């Protein structure tokens, strides 16, 4: 039996809890999958329990203790206002996760709906939606984000709007191409011949086959969104001070990079660990479920 046959079986695996558990075991068997899973769990736990773990109030200013290197009291040192960077990193993680999960979730639902319509609906609707998607996609993300910031002003909501608008075309396009491939599949013809209507075919026969790959794709986008949030906050276009964010920690640190390297190092590492964790986990999930998915970005 060839590897492709085995993977074909894996993609057709129905989503029961038993199978989720089995897939997780396969992910954990891969060293990188296990590492990714571990990192993601670590980030999730520390973000959820940020208030509990944080030794200091993240916005508490202590000018006398500014720009300190790591110590037993301040694990990651302090910033230019003497705030404890470790506490700020923990709370910043919660914001990064909130932004990415909420905005990807919204983009997923909208992209799925539009993609199904484009893939199964009439040709003209497909063409217009595709043109719209391609046009939105042609704005370089950060440029587009900056343009949006000029209008709405920098805020967390602005970041989420940018992410939602730029992700919808990606999910929409993918759902559309999968839907089109399924539309002419024999099992869809068989259902149509039996008299199944439009909504029944979409809901019972196309949706279940599209959702799995889409979720894997979305999980691989989490690091991208975290990067966007951190990046915009770094530029001062995202989260407003004094709210802690990995981006603002880096921005503050950058101003003092010639005085002390610690804030930049401390702000960058959580970003790297989180994106690495989600990327490793996403890649392993994809390898387990659907190796053919997303050869291109």
């Amino acid at each position, binding site marked *: *039996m*060839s*590897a492709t046959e*085995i993977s074909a079986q894996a993609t057709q695996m129905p989503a029961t809890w038993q199978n989720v558990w089995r897939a997780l075991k396969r992910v954990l068997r891969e060293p990188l999958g296990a590492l990714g899973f571990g990192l993601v769990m670590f980030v999730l736990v520390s973000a959820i329990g940020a208030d509990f773990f944080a030794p200091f109030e993240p916005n508490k200013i202590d000018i006398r203790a500014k720009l300190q290197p790591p110590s037993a009291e301040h694990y990651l040192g302090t910033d230019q206002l003497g705030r404890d960077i470790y506490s700020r990193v923990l709370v910043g993680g919660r914001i990064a996760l909130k932004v990415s999960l909420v905005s990807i979730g919204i983009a997923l639902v909208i992209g799925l709906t539009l993609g199904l319509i484009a893939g199964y609906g009439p040709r003209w609707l497909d063409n217009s939606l595709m043109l719209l998607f391609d046009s939105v996609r042609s704005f370089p993300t950060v440029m587009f984000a900056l343009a949006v910031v000029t209008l709405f002003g920098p805020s967390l909501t602005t970041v989420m709007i940018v992410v939602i608008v730029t992700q919808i075309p990606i999910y929409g396009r993918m759902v559309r191409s999968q839907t089109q491939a399924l539309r002419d599949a024999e099992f869809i013809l068989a259902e149509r011949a039996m008299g199944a209507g439009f909504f029944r075919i979409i809901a019972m026969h196309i949706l279940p086959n599209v959702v799995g790959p889409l979720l894997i794709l979305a999980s691989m986008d989490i690091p991208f969104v975290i990067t966007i949030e951190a990046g915009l906050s770094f530029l001062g276009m995202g989260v407003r001070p004094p709210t802690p964010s990995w981006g603002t920690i880096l921005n503050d640190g950058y101003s003092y990079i010639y005085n002390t390297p610690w804030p930049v190092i401390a702000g960058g590492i959580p970003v790297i660990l989180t994106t690495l964790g989600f990327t490793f986990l996403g890649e392993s999930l994809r390898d387990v479920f659907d190796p053919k998915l997303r050869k291109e970005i």
Partner: protein
Amino acid sequence: MLEISRLNVEFTTERGVIKALRDVDLEVPRGSIVGVVGESGCGKSTMINSIIGLLAHNAAVRSGSITFEGSDLLQKSQRELRDIRGTRISMVFQDPMTALNPVLSIGAQMTDIQYRDPIGMAQKKQRSIRMLSRVGIPDPETRLENYPHQFSGGMRQRIAIAMALQAEPALLIADEPTTALDATLEVQIIHRLKDLQQSMGCSILFISHHLGVIAELCDFVVVMYGGEVVERGTVRDIFHRPAHPYTIKLLECDPARIAETTRALPTIPGEIPDLVNLPPGCIFADRCDRCIKVCREQIPQTTEFAEHHWARCHLAGSMAET
């Protein structure tokens, strides 16, 4: 010329070790056409891939030998095997739509496979043109510039045959070359193949599940089932005096052999056993209606009970007579 003896090939998978080929014996005499018959999962493809040394990564030859022109192919290095492939042994594959490189012209691909010959480009091209016209491609000179997608399925299969025979190999392995084609084309290609074989004097190992094609084309027939060769003999032996119960059943099942119109077609109930957990006795015992006690306990040995006619069955000799 080609002789496979006691070949064992296994695949390592997540489910366990698949014993894909077990003690396979096969012989292709010089200048003859040997047909291999068998249903899906019988090990035909694994056998071909073992001969040309292109087994999958998770496959391993456990024992046995494949002797070709006096030396064992299994003992050869990848490099030596590569020198044999395309010169002494050539292949034609099943699916003509995907067997050729889509972004290279036919001419480029035909020239590429002559890379060993110390002749000029123009001569290589001339040779390609000659070969294409021999397989019946009209206007070969201009068609050489075309890409595979500009040919129909039948034409592509002709091109594949032209490429395979260009180096005048001693052995041509044809893996279901006509299965994907329409019946009227199938006949054309079979006849062309036979003509070419006779004029070039090569041997052909012809894999097919179409009994009619085998009967028409081949001199000898090998019947495979569940990773074993269960019977082999001349084409007349197999079609007129089948000895193994599987062969008998298989022939009975073919509706083309049933002269009287009937709505009750014969079948072989059951399925091939799991090749990971083999039954202790004969591989066909579960589906065999002549199964006796010894069949479930002992693996039958290959016995020759008439000249050129072997079967792997405890009842072999006695069956042919009845």
